[in-house]
């Protein structure tokens, strides 16, 4: 325990494991209290997933990961971007419309569409950023409003550009050309479905997030602003510009959230496009403590629970929404466990600092005595 690195590692691993057990126990209690089949629920939730489901877990985690990273960029700056939901909707829609036009061939179409999504998401976020910087409107409230406005705006535009296919009641943007559809990778042996090709996107984003935040000047400025705005100002960070930049960055990343879905699965933006990813992203970013690797684990866990819960109704006769309770409890348990370990950590650190200072002092006094 004396080595701070070993200590940190043990504490940060111990907390989530403890939390998972607590969540397990609490959920079981709830189930028992209401007379639901505890055994069946856990058998369903914890059964080894089929290869097909593993693919789903990974795919689900990819989009959740992107969403959580977008949220985390804001958190690092003490900005609470509830607006990822609206930003990714705007971004996905813009990219879908663009890619559907097939102005560019194959991969190029994808790359430019991704940029379009980032620009659209970023622009949408820039409204909240502008209001915060220039008008002092809390980003919490402006992004809540902007989410709803994005919903209306995108629906309206969707109706304008939608194509109807014969016999279908769904509407969507023009389907992107075959050459720009990504088939995915057969990463999971034995699975009939494939992992989104844009897994790469998540990996790149995760790496860049880590690299930019911890290795660059910009990242330092951003973190400094998040941890003390006043100190950042005095150190020469232009905070307003920083708020603008990071909020727009967060929005641009949010724009990416729909890309794996768009190119790897739905091939158009329509009424059945997955919703609510922004909110899940908040939970996952918090669970992963805004750390790129932590978020990856959190996203996988979240997605695993989502996927496994699908069978709850069929196999255990319990509403699949039970998984929300489990996820919420895990979130609570993890943060409480982290808080516990944080307190422990501080105490240990203080003891260590005090011990070392004492020995330094002792050394000095003996030195002084010798001289």
């Amino acid at each position: 325990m004396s080595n701070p690195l070993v200590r940190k590692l043990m504490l940060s691993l111990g907390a989530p494991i403890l939390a998972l057990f607590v969540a397990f126990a609490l959920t079981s209690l709830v189930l028992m209290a209401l007379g639901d089949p505890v055994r069946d629920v856990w058998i369903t939730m914890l059964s080894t997933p089929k290869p097909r489901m593993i693919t789903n877990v990974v795919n689900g985690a990819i989009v959740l990961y992107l969403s959580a990273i977008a949220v985390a960029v804001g958190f690092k700056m003490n900005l609470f971007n509830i607006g990822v939901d609206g930003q990714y909707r705007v971004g996905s829609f813009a990219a879908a419309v663009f890619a559907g036009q097939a102005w560019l061939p194959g991969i190029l179409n994808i790359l430019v569409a991704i940029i379009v999504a980032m620009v659209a998401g970023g622009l949408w976020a820039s409204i909240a950023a502008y209001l915060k910087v220039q008008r002092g409107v809390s980003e919490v409230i402006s992004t809540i409003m902007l989410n709803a406005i994005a919903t209306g705006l995108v629906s309206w535009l969707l109706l304008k550009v939608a194509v109807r296919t014969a016999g279908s009641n769904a509407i969507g943007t023009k389907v992107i050309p075959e050459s720009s559809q990504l088939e995915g990778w057969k990463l999971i042996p034995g699975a009939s479905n494939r992992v989104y090709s844009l897994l790469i996107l998540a990996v790149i984003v995760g790496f860049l997030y880590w690299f930019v935040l911890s290795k660059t000047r910009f990242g330092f400025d951003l973190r400094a602003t998040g941890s003390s705005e006043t100190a950042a100002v005095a150190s020469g960070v232009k905070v307003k510009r920083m708020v603008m930049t990071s909020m727009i960055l967060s929005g641009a990343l949010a724009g990416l959230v729909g890309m794996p879905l768009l190119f790897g699965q739905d091939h158009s933006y329509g009424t059945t496009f997955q919703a609510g990813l922004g909110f899940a992203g908040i939970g996952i970013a918090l669970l992963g403590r805004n750390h790129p690797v932590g978020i990856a684990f959190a996203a996988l866990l979240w997605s695993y629970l989502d996927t496994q819960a699908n069978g709850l109704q069929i196999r255990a006769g319990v509403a699949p929404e039970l998984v929300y309770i489990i996820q919420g409890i895990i979130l609570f348990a993890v943060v409480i466990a982290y808080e516990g370990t944080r307190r422990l950590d501080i105490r240990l650190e203080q003891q260590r600092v005090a011990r070392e200072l004492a020995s330094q002092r002792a050394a000095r006094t003996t030195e002084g005595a010798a001289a």
Partner: protein
Amino acid sequence: ACGSGTSKETSTTTAGSGTTSSTSESSSTSEAPKSDVKVGLAFDVGGRGDQSFNDAAAAGMDKAKAEFGLETTDATAVNGENEAAREERLNQLVDAGYTNIIAVGFAYAASVGKVAKENPDVHFAIIDDASDASKGDNVAQLTFAEQEGSFLVGAAAALTSKTGHIGFVGGVNVPLIVKFEAGYDAGAKAVNPDIKIDSTYLTQPPDFSGFGDPAKGKTAAEGMYQGGADIVYHAAGGSGAGVFTAAKAAKGWAIGVDSDQAKTAEEGVRDVILTSMLKKVDVAVYDYLAKAVKGENAAGNVIYDLKVDGVGYSTTGDKMSADVIAKLEDYKAKIVSGEIKVPDTK
């Protein structure tokens, strides 16, 4: 290959239903006969108990279950879920050994198409979709001419209205619901070209809360009644309850949707329901299952329109005069004959 799979399946089910009478007596748990057909129903968001669309599908299945002694289960979609989740739900049903899987709602189109292809031995049905996405040798596409039924209730509204002003409340602004509105408008205008029709959608996709927010339904309908409308038609699922409440308070008429809501709605408001536009999802589901039990191949698109009585209007409570009903029957005949073509978009 698919064909042979189907025929093999067919023969076994036929055998099963051939011996129904004898097995039914011996089975102790239920009086219904047993069948090898195992039915899995995948609901849209809202699921069983929405007193609307999903419930109608459930009713069809329950009826078939009771009649043919089927083993059934169902699973409900989660709000805002991913395509993969829908696929997974169907796959889980396949894995659990269900032979006939019914997907309720157009959202399932792509998933049904995909999972049906991967599982040629399993039979699928999808409601409200007839697109290429869900097409397959083992897929029955059950669709409805909602606009035709809506045309008739629109005509009924125009015939009954004293103010020449009626309304429409849609749950969520999706093309399916627009179909209802389009038919309703056409029907009302056919009777009275100058009629004033208010229209409101409660929410925009992907916010589907408009199908479950009675407060909003009530507010929207109130606005119409107080603005002078005396009849409001809703295609808003659970939010319709609010429309009925508003009608009751305003002493106006309301028109129900999907099922005969003068029978299913809350007791207190049944007397304000002029008629309901019937979309016989229950019949479609029952028919499909009946065919399955008999071993007939049900694949392909079946359109439930006025001609086959797949849509229609209800007369429970006798709120419409014989005169009105006669006129409606007249329109109905014209639609069936093709003389009137009802639009399905605005």
